[in-house]
């Protein structure tokens, strides 16, 4: 059974900066408290983690970069393998494009 996580309802409707030291509801906080543990849970249970981006006021680029790019660095896994268990759902398609682009950039930097 898929693990569904709606950011607007369960995390915040006002995503914040990149790092925890910079402010509340940061990308780093989302990665450490939500994304990484739930992704590992999804792998263990051989299911999908569905992250629903709808309902927030927006997503600053720094937030998405640190959260999803950071997942690549923390798991040391390439994008093709990560997307076997991770689904990003959004009515605003440009966020999905941004996440894909940033995850590939982090893959180039941190995975050889």
């Amino acid at each position: 059974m898929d693990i569904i996580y709606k950011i607007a309802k369960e995390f915040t409707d006002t995503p914040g900066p990149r790092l925890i030291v910079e402010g509340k509801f940061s990308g780093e906080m989302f990665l450490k408290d939500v994304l990484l543990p739930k992704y590992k849970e999804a792998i263990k249970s051989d299911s999908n983690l569905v992250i629903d981006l709808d309902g927030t006021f927006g997503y600053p680029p720094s937030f998405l970069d640190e959260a999803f790019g950071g997942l690549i660095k923390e798991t040391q896994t390439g994008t093709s393998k990560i997307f076997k268990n991770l689904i990003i759902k959004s009515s605003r398609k440009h966020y999905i494009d941004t996440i894909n682009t940033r995850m590939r950039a982090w893959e180039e930097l941190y995975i050889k």
Partner: protein
Amino acid sequence: MTDIKTTDKKYIMWKKRRDLRIHKFEIKKKKWKKERKKNTNLEKVDRSIKFLERNYLPDRTISVPNQFSLINNPETTINFFDELIGLIYNKVKQRVYINMKNVETITVDALIYLLAVIKNMRAEGIVYKNPIEGNYPENKEAYNIFVKSGFLDYMNNGLEKIDSKDVSRIYYGSNYDQNVSKKMCVFAHNNSSLTVDDTDYLYNSICEMMLNTVQHAYESTSKLINNWYSYAECNDEDIIYMFFDTGEGIPSTIERNVSFLGIKKEKDSDMLSSAMNGDFRSSTKLKTRGSGLVSIKNSISLDKIKYLSVITNKASNTYMINENNLVENKSDMKGSLTGTLYYWKIRRI
């Protein structure tokens, strides 16, 4: 019988000596009287008046330009601020009086910068040596803008607040606060038919601008404390946003960060233009740094923003769509603004 005293030499000598003694005594008496007067109340009052006179600070009046606006009259307005900052920070004690009586047109960007200067003075304790006071514009329209803007919320005055749906208040801070970005979006929702999905670019841009202010605060050599200020207002056609960052300014920051590369110094307007295109971001990981600039410029290309003006240091660049093309106008001023002002308009659908 003759008067022995008057003719006797001895008597004459004695009389002279006696007169001298009396004369000396009279002088001493006068001196005693003077010393006694010093201890009377009259003398104390005189002394206190002289004390007050010594501490009385002479007024130095500085007149605000008739068109008080960084957007519409940048050169004259920046000159005014340079003069004001010079007066406030010099070593001579004086009361500074800002004369706004003859202001005919005013925009809130200039009031925000004035607020930033006064906040800086308070933070540095300068306001106690050089008190700052002022008056209001006599022109009715200018007066209404002045009071509605919320500038007076931060001053000691007895005026009643005027609440208006057409303006947000002036928000400021030194830390990241995404709730202010949310409030700017909600202002658009309340004054148009735009929804949360329609204003996400606005939320993202303001958040990124705020993040730039916070991230550069520790490296900044700006003469003003590095704060951000945010404000919105609307008229019949448009919703107008202003975001002010009192850091060094974009060209100064770029110059400082890339000086080791030996890049030739360009004009401020050219450096700003390059930064708006996303240049000067060194590594792949840091490509989201400075993305507030790129994000807001892209919003024009996507026709979400009708008009954008950015004023920073000597650069004053504007961006708008003309016949489906993005048109950029670059210009360099003689004066230099400390910080960066973003001023943009969206359609009030």
